[in-house]
Protein backbone atom coordinates (compact mmCIF):
# COMPACT_ATOMS: atom_id res chain seq x y z
CA UNK A 1 0.00 0.00 0.00
CA UNK A 2 2.74 2.35 1.10
CA UNK A 3 4.72 1.43 -1.98
CA UNK A 4 1.81 2.13 -4.28
CA UNK A 5 1.23 5.55 -2.73
CA UNK A 6 4.90 6.45 -3.13
CA UNK A 7 5.08 5.23 -6.72
CA UNK A 8 1.95 7.15 -7.60
CA UNK A 9 3.24 10.31 -5.96
CA UNK A 10 6.51 9.93 -7.82
CA UNK A 11 4.61 9.62 -11.08
CA UNK A 12 2.54 12.66 -10.15
CA UNK A 13 5.77 14.52 -9.47
CA UNK A 14 7.19 13.40 -12.79
CA UNK A 15 4.02 14.69 -14.44
CA UNK A 16 4.46 18.09 -12.83
CA UNK A 17 8.08 18.18 -13.97
CA UNK A 18 6.88 17.44 -17.49
CA UNK A 19 4.35 20.28 -17.20
CA UNK A 20 7.11 22.63 -16.15
CA UNK A 21 9.40 21.48 -18.94
CA UNK A 22 6.67 21.97 -21.52
CA UNK A 23 5.97 25.40 -20.03
CA UNK A 24 9.59 26.40 -20.47
CA UNK A 25 9.76 24.97 -23.97
CA UNK A 26 6.61 26.54 -25.34
CA UNK A 27 6.02 29.52 -23.09
CA UNK A 28 2.47 28.42 -22.36
CA UNK A 29 1.36 26.90 -19.08
CA UNK A 30 -0.90 23.99 -19.88
CA UNK A 31 -1.60 21.41 -17.23
CA UNK A 32 -2.72 18.87 -19.80
CA UNK A 33 0.27 19.25 -22.13
CA UNK A 34 2.21 16.12 -21.01
CA UNK A 35 -0.96 14.02 -21.06
CA UNK A 36 -1.66 15.03 -24.65
CA UNK A 37 1.97 14.49 -25.57
CA UNK A 38 1.82 11.00 -24.06
CA UNK A 39 -1.38 10.14 -25.90
CA UNK A 40 0.15 11.43 -29.12
CA UNK A 41 3.27 9.33 -28.57
CA UNK A 42 1.20 6.21 -27.89
CA UNK A 43 -0.76 6.80 -31.07
CA UNK A 44 2.36 7.27 -33.12
CA UNK A 45 4.20 4.46 -34.85
CA UNK A 46 7.12 3.04 -32.96
CA UNK A 47 9.71 2.31 -35.59
CA UNK A 48 12.66 0.02 -35.03
CA UNK A 49 15.75 0.94 -37.07
CA UNK A 50 16.74 -1.61 -39.67
CA UNK A 51 19.77 -3.21 -38.07
CA UNK A 52 19.32 -2.77 -34.34
CA UNK A 53 20.85 -4.65 -31.49
CA UNK A 54 17.33 -5.55 -30.52
CA UNK A 55 17.98 -6.43 -26.90
CA UNK A 56 19.87 -3.22 -26.19
CA UNK A 57 17.39 -1.14 -28.12
CA UNK A 58 14.35 -2.49 -26.28
CA UNK A 59 15.94 -2.63 -22.84
CA UNK A 60 17.36 0.88 -22.69
CA UNK A 61 14.16 2.91 -22.04
CA UNK A 62 12.86 0.38 -19.53
CA UNK A 63 16.20 0.26 -17.74
CA UNK A 64 16.24 4.04 -17.43
CA UNK A 65 12.84 3.96 -15.77
CA UNK A 66 13.85 1.09 -13.50
CA UNK A 67 17.08 2.82 -12.47
CA UNK A 68 15.23 5.98 -11.56
CA UNK A 69 12.54 4.16 -9.60
CA UNK A 70 15.01 1.95 -7.74
CA UNK A 71 16.97 4.98 -6.62
CA UNK A 72 13.73 6.55 -5.46
CA UNK A 73 12.75 3.40 -3.57
CA UNK A 74 15.20 4.08 -0.75
CA UNK A 75 14.41 7.79 -0.40
CA UNK A 76 11.92 8.68 2.34
CA UNK A 77 9.09 11.15 1.78
CA UNK A 78 8.20 11.05 5.47
CA UNK A 79 9.47 8.94 8.41
CA UNK A 80 7.19 6.11 7.39
CA UNK A 81 6.83 6.77 3.66
CA UNK A 82 9.78 4.88 2.28
CA UNK A 83 9.50 1.83 0.08
CA UNK A 84 12.63 -0.01 1.25
CA UNK A 85 14.67 1.54 4.02
CA UNK A 86 17.83 -0.38 3.22
CA UNK A 87 20.79 -0.27 5.57
CA UNK A 88 22.89 0.61 2.53
CA UNK A 89 20.48 3.33 1.38
CA UNK A 90 22.86 6.10 0.34
CA UNK A 91 25.11 3.62 -1.43
CA UNK A 92 22.11 2.05 -3.11
CA UNK A 93 21.12 5.41 -4.61
CA UNK A 94 24.53 5.47 -6.26
CA UNK A 95 24.32 1.92 -7.45
CA UNK A 96 20.92 2.48 -9.03
CA UNK A 97 22.00 5.73 -10.68
CA UNK A 98 24.94 3.91 -12.27
CA UNK A 99 22.39 2.15 -14.46
CA UNK A 100 21.47 5.46 -16.06
CA UNK A 101 24.80 5.21 -17.83
CA UNK A 102 24.12 1.64 -18.88
CA UNK A 103 20.69 2.58 -20.21
CA UNK A 104 22.03 5.47 -22.24
CA UNK A 105 24.96 3.52 -23.64
CA UNK A 106 22.56 0.74 -24.63
CA UNK A 107 20.27 3.25 -26.31
CA UNK A 108 23.22 4.78 -28.11
CA UNK A 109 24.67 1.51 -29.28
CA UNK A 110 21.46 -0.37 -29.91
CA UNK A 111 20.11 1.55 -32.86
CA UNK A 112 23.25 1.51 -35.03
CA UNK A 113 22.84 5.18 -35.78
CA UNK A 114 25.67 7.67 -35.76
CA UNK A 115 23.89 10.41 -33.82
CA UNK A 116 22.81 7.99 -31.12
CA UNK A 117 26.22 6.35 -30.91
CA UNK A 118 28.05 9.62 -30.40
CA UNK A 119 25.43 10.59 -27.83
CA UNK A 120 25.93 7.37 -25.90
CA UNK A 121 29.72 7.67 -25.78
CA UNK A 122 29.41 11.30 -24.86
CA UNK A 123 27.39 10.33 -21.84
CA UNK A 124 30.12 7.95 -20.76
CA UNK A 125 32.47 10.93 -20.73
CA UNK A 126 29.88 12.87 -18.79
CA UNK A 127 29.65 10.10 -16.21
CA UNK A 128 33.42 10.14 -15.77
CA UNK A 129 33.08 13.87 -15.11
CA UNK A 130 30.18 13.99 -12.67
CA UNK A 131 30.39 10.65 -10.94
CA UNK A 132 32.90 11.61 -8.24
CA UNK A 133 30.86 14.72 -7.50
CA UNK A 134 27.90 12.50 -6.63
CA UNK A 135 29.69 9.97 -4.44
CA UNK A 136 32.07 12.23 -2.53
CA UNK A 137 29.41 14.65 -1.27
CA UNK A 138 27.20 11.68 -0.30
CA UNK A 139 30.10 10.28 1.72
CA UNK A 140 30.35 13.57 3.58
CA UNK A 141 26.63 13.39 4.31
CA UNK A 142 27.00 9.84 5.61
CA UNK A 143 29.88 10.94 7.86
CA UNK A 144 27.62 13.35 9.66
CA UNK A 145 24.75 10.87 9.90
CA UNK A 146 26.99 7.95 10.93
CA UNK A 147 24.77 5.81 8.81
CA UNK A 148 23.81 5.05 5.24
CA UNK A 149 20.12 4.74 6.17
CA UNK A 150 18.36 7.55 4.38
CA UNK A 151 15.99 8.12 7.30
CA UNK A 152 18.97 8.52 9.63
CA UNK A 153 20.48 10.98 7.19
CA UNK A 154 17.37 13.12 7.42
CA UNK A 155 17.24 12.92 11.22
CA UNK A 156 20.90 13.93 11.42
CA UNK A 157 19.88 17.31 10.00
CA UNK A 158 17.55 18.07 12.92
CA UNK A 159 19.72 20.92 14.22
CA UNK A 160 20.89 22.40 10.98
CA UNK A 161 20.27 21.27 7.41
CA UNK A 162 23.18 19.96 5.41
CA UNK A 163 22.82 22.77 2.88
CA UNK A 164 24.20 25.06 5.61
CA UNK A 165 26.42 22.46 7.26
CA UNK A 166 28.21 21.52 4.03
CA UNK A 167 27.33 24.09 1.37
CA UNK A 168 30.19 23.06 -0.96
CA UNK A 169 28.86 19.53 -1.01
CA UNK A 170 25.38 20.79 -1.78
CA UNK A 171 26.48 22.86 -4.75
CA UNK A 172 28.55 20.00 -6.17
CA UNK A 173 25.77 17.48 -5.66
CA UNK A 174 23.14 19.75 -7.17
CA UNK A 175 25.17 20.44 -10.30
CA UNK A 176 26.16 16.78 -10.64
CA UNK A 177 22.50 15.77 -10.27
CA UNK A 178 21.62 17.91 -13.26
CA UNK A 179 24.35 16.09 -15.16
CA UNK A 180 22.99 12.69 -14.09
CA UNK A 181 19.56 13.57 -15.41
CA UNK A 182 21.19 15.05 -18.54
CA UNK A 183 19.26 18.24 -18.03
CA UNK A 184 20.44 21.34 -19.87
CA UNK A 185 23.18 22.63 -19.80
CA UNK A 186 24.41 19.03 -19.46
CA UNK A 187 22.14 17.58 -22.13
CA UNK A 188 25.10 16.33 -24.15
CA UNK A 189 23.71 12.84 -24.94
CA UNK A 190 20.39 14.13 -26.24
CA UNK A 191 21.51 17.47 -27.66
CA UNK A 192 19.15 18.62 -30.38
CA UNK A 193 21.50 21.14 -31.94
CA UNK A 194 24.53 18.80 -31.96
CA UNK A 195 23.04 15.37 -32.54
CA UNK A 196 19.41 15.86 -33.57
CA UNK A 197 18.30 14.13 -30.40
CA UNK A 198 21.30 11.84 -29.87
CA UNK A 199 20.36 8.69 -27.99
CA UNK A 200 16.70 9.67 -28.26
CA UNK A 201 16.91 10.14 -32.02
CA UNK A 202 15.89 6.62 -32.98
CA UNK A 203 13.09 6.22 -30.47
CA UNK A 204 9.58 6.94 -31.57
CA UNK A 205 6.09 6.27 -30.32
CA UNK A 206 5.62 4.25 -27.18
CA UNK A 207 9.34 3.58 -26.73
CA UNK A 208 10.04 7.30 -26.70
CA UNK A 209 7.18 7.74 -24.25
CA UNK A 210 8.82 5.26 -21.87
CA UNK A 211 12.21 6.95 -22.32
CA UNK A 212 10.76 10.37 -21.54
CA UNK A 213 8.86 9.00 -18.56
CA UNK A 214 12.08 7.48 -17.28
CA UNK A 215 13.86 10.78 -17.57
CA UNK A 216 11.11 12.69 -15.77
CA UNK A 217 11.12 10.16 -12.94
CA UNK A 218 14.90 10.49 -12.85
CA UNK A 219 14.62 14.25 -12.39
CA UNK A 220 12.17 13.75 -9.52
CA UNK A 221 14.38 11.09 -7.99
CA UNK A 222 17.41 13.33 -8.04
CA UNK A 223 15.42 16.21 -6.59
CA UNK A 224 14.26 13.84 -3.86
CA UNK A 225 17.85 12.78 -3.23
CA UNK A 226 18.94 16.41 -2.96
CA UNK A 227 16.09 17.02 -0.55
CA UNK A 228 16.92 14.03 1.61
CA UNK A 229 20.67 14.59 1.67
CA UNK A 230 20.78 18.37 1.99
CA UNK A 231 17.42 20.01 2.60
CA UNK A 232 16.32 18.17 5.71
CA UNK A 233 13.95 15.81 3.90
CA UNK A 234 10.49 15.92 5.46
CA UNK A 235 11.40 18.39 8.21
CA UNK A 236 9.59 21.69 8.46
CA UNK A 237 7.07 23.50 10.66
CA UNK A 238 3.24 23.34 10.62
CA UNK A 239 2.67 21.27 7.46
CA UNK A 240 2.71 17.45 7.57
CA UNK A 241 6.02 15.77 6.67
CA UNK A 242 4.93 14.49 3.25
CA UNK A 243 3.86 17.98 2.25
CA UNK A 244 7.27 19.39 3.11
CA UNK A 245 8.92 16.66 1.09
CA UNK A 246 6.68 17.38 -1.88
CA UNK A 247 7.31 21.13 -1.71
CA UNK A 248 11.05 20.73 -1.44
CA UNK A 249 11.28 18.12 -4.19
CA UNK A 250 9.23 20.19 -6.60
CA UNK A 251 11.21 23.32 -5.78
CA UNK A 252 14.50 21.55 -6.39
CA UNK A 253 13.36 20.07 -9.69
CA UNK A 254 12.04 23.46 -10.79
CA UNK A 255 15.41 24.99 -9.94
CA UNK A 256 17.16 22.29 -11.97
CA UNK A 257 14.99 22.91 -15.02
CA UNK A 258 15.13 26.70 -14.77
CA UNK A 259 18.90 26.71 -14.41
CA UNK A 260 19.30 24.92 -17.72
CA UNK A 261 16.77 27.10 -19.50
CA UNK A 262 18.95 30.18 -19.27
CA UNK A 263 22.29 28.58 -20.18
CA UNK A 264 23.87 27.27 -23.37
CA UNK A 265 25.09 23.68 -23.42
CA UNK A 266 28.45 23.07 -21.82
CA UNK A 267 31.29 21.75 -23.99
CA UNK A 268 32.21 18.22 -23.09
CA UNK A 269 35.92 19.02 -22.83
CA UNK A 270 35.11 21.84 -20.40
CA UNK A 271 32.78 19.68 -18.36
CA UNK A 272 35.49 17.06 -17.89
CA UNK A 273 38.18 19.63 -17.18
CA UNK A 274 36.14 21.63 -14.67
CA UNK A 275 34.85 18.57 -12.86
CA UNK A 276 38.34 17.13 -12.40
CA UNK A 277 40.40 20.25 -11.93
CA UNK A 278 37.92 22.16 -9.80
CA UNK A 279 35.13 19.82 -8.73
CA UNK A 280 37.13 16.95 -7.28
CA UNK A 281 39.56 19.14 -5.30
CA UNK A 282 36.52 20.98 -3.92
CA UNK A 283 34.84 17.68 -3.06
CA UNK A 284 37.97 16.57 -1.18
CA UNK A 285 38.11 19.89 0.67
CA UNK A 286 34.46 19.42 1.53
CA UNK A 287 35.21 15.96 2.95
CA UNK A 288 38.00 17.39 5.07
CA UNK A 289 35.96 20.33 6.38
CA UNK A 290 33.02 18.09 7.22
CA UNK A 291 35.43 15.62 8.84
CA UNK A 292 36.76 18.32 11.15
CA UNK A 293 33.32 19.78 11.82
CA UNK A 294 31.77 16.42 12.69
CA UNK A 295 34.42 15.97 15.39
CA UNK A 296 34.03 19.40 16.97
CA UNK A 297 30.39 20.34 16.30
CA UNK A 298 28.10 17.51 15.25
Amino acid at each position, binding site marked *: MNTLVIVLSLLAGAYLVAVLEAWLATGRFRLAAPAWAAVALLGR*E*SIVPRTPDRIFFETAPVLLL*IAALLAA*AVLPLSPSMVMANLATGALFVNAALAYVLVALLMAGWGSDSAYALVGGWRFL*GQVIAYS*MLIVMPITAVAMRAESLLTTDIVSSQEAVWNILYQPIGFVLFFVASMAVAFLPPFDLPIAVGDLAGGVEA*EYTGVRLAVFRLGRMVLVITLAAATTVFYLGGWMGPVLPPWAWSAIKILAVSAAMLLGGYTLPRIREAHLLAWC*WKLGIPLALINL*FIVGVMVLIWP
Partner: protein
Amino acid sequence: MNALQQYGLLLALICGVIGLVLILFALARAIGRTQQEPGKNVPATAGMLSRDPVWVRYHARYYGYALLFLAFDMEMAFMYPWAVVYKQTGLVALLDMGVFLAILFLGLLYGWSQGAFRRQ
Protein backbone atom coordinates in the same frame (compact mmCIF):
# COMPACT_ATOMS: atom_id res chain seq x y z
CA MET B 1 10.39 -5.32 7.08
CA ASN B 2 13.59 -7.27 7.17
CA ALA B 3 16.28 -6.87 4.56
CA LEU B 4 15.12 -9.87 2.55
CA GLN B 5 11.59 -8.50 2.27
CA GLN B 6 12.99 -5.16 1.23
CA TYR B 7 14.94 -6.70 -1.59
CA GLY B 8 11.85 -8.68 -2.52
CA LEU B 9 9.97 -5.42 -2.73
CA LEU B 10 12.61 -3.94 -5.00
CA LEU B 11 12.37 -6.99 -7.24
CA ALA B 12 8.61 -6.60 -7.31
CA LEU B 13 9.12 -2.96 -8.26
CA ILE B 14 11.23 -3.99 -11.23
CA CYS B 15 8.60 -6.51 -12.30
CA GLY B 16 5.93 -3.85 -11.85
CA VAL B 17 7.80 -1.45 -14.13
CA ILE B 18 8.21 -4.11 -16.78
CA GLY B 19 4.51 -4.90 -16.47
CA LEU B 20 3.63 -1.23 -16.85
CA VAL B 21 5.79 -0.94 -19.94
CA LEU B 22 4.20 -4.05 -21.44
CA ILE B 23 0.76 -2.58 -20.81
CA LEU B 24 1.83 0.63 -22.56
CA PHE B 25 3.14 -1.39 -25.50
CA ALA B 26 -0.14 -3.31 -25.70
CA LEU B 27 -2.07 -0.05 -25.54
CA ALA B 28 0.00 1.45 -28.35
CA ARG B 29 -0.48 -1.67 -30.39
CA ALA B 30 -4.23 -1.56 -29.83
CA ILE B 31 -4.30 1.99 -31.17
CA GLY B 32 -2.51 0.98 -34.33
CA ARG B 33 0.36 -1.08 -35.64
CA THR B 34 3.47 0.13 -37.39
CA GLN B 35 3.13 0.23 -41.16
CA GLN B 36 5.97 -1.41 -43.03
CA GLU B 37 7.08 1.06 -45.65
CA PRO B 38 10.36 1.24 -47.55
CA GLY B 39 12.99 3.62 -46.24
CA LYS B 40 11.22 4.14 -42.96
CA ASN B 41 13.56 2.12 -40.82
CA VAL B 42 16.74 3.89 -41.89
CA PRO B 43 18.32 5.55 -38.87
CA ALA B 44 17.88 9.29 -38.64
CA THR B 45 20.42 11.17 -40.71
CA ALA B 46 18.80 14.56 -41.21
CA GLY B 47 17.47 14.03 -44.69
CA MET B 48 20.02 11.73 -46.33
CA LEU B 49 19.24 8.04 -46.75
CA SER B 50 22.56 6.36 -47.38
CA ARG B 51 24.86 5.74 -44.44
CA ASP B 52 27.54 3.37 -43.24
CA PRO B 53 27.18 1.02 -40.30
CA VAL B 54 28.46 2.81 -37.22
CA TRP B 55 29.41 -0.02 -34.88
CA VAL B 56 33.08 0.77 -35.06
CA ARG B 57 36.17 1.21 -32.92
CA TYR B 58 35.14 4.48 -31.37
CA HIS B 59 37.78 6.98 -30.40
CA ALA B 60 36.82 8.06 -26.89
CA ARG B 61 38.97 11.10 -26.33
CA TYR B 62 38.51 11.21 -22.59
CA TYR B 63 40.60 8.12 -21.88
CA GLY B 64 43.06 10.12 -19.80
CA TYR B 65 40.28 10.96 -17.37
CA ALA B 66 38.89 7.46 -17.57
CA LEU B 67 42.11 5.91 -16.26
CA LEU B 68 42.20 8.22 -13.26
CA PHE B 69 38.51 7.66 -12.76
CA LEU B 70 39.19 3.97 -12.14
CA ALA B 71 41.55 4.84 -9.28
CA PHE B 72 39.06 7.20 -7.71
CA ASP B 73 36.14 4.84 -8.14
CA MET B 74 38.02 2.10 -6.30
CA GLU B 75 38.79 4.53 -3.52
CA MET B 76 35.10 5.28 -3.10
CA ALA B 77 34.45 1.63 -2.26
CA PHE B 78 36.51 2.15 0.91
CA MET B 79 34.99 5.52 1.71
CA TYR B 80 31.45 4.39 2.49
CA PRO B 81 32.19 2.02 5.37
CA TRP B 82 34.76 4.50 6.65
CA ALA B 83 32.19 7.29 6.61
CA VAL B 84 29.76 5.29 8.75
CA VAL B 85 32.25 4.61 11.54
CA TYR B 86 34.04 7.91 11.16
CA LYS B 87 32.62 9.72 14.18
CA GLN B 88 33.10 6.89 16.65
CA THR B 89 36.68 6.28 15.53
CA GLY B 90 37.41 9.99 15.67
CA LEU B 91 40.58 11.79 14.77
CA VAL B 92 42.42 8.60 13.82
CA ALA B 93 39.92 7.98 11.07
CA LEU B 94 40.46 11.46 9.74
CA LEU B 95 44.21 10.89 9.64
CA ASP B 96 43.85 7.42 8.11
CA MET B 97 41.69 8.59 5.29
CA GLY B 98 43.59 11.88 5.05
CA VAL B 99 46.82 10.06 4.23
CA PHE B 100 45.01 7.81 1.77
CA LEU B 101 43.29 10.71 0.03
CA ALA B 102 46.47 12.78 0.01
CA ILE B 103 48.25 10.04 -1.89
CA LEU B 104 45.35 9.77 -4.29
CA PHE B 105 45.28 13.54 -4.70
CA LEU B 106 48.99 13.54 -5.47
CA GLY B 107 48.17 11.00 -8.16
CA LEU B 108 45.59 13.41 -9.53
CA LEU B 109 48.14 16.21 -9.57
CA TYR B 110 50.65 13.95 -11.28
CA GLY B 111 48.15 12.94 -13.92
CA TRP B 112 47.29 16.58 -14.42
CA SER B 113 50.95 17.49 -14.88
CA GLN B 114 51.34 14.68 -17.42
CA GLY B 115 48.45 15.98 -19.50
CA ALA B 116 45.84 13.38 -18.58
CA PHE B 117 43.22 16.10 -18.13
CA ARG B 118 42.71 17.17 -21.69
CA ARG B 119 41.01 15.97 -24.81
CA GLN B 120 43.44 13.52 -26.29
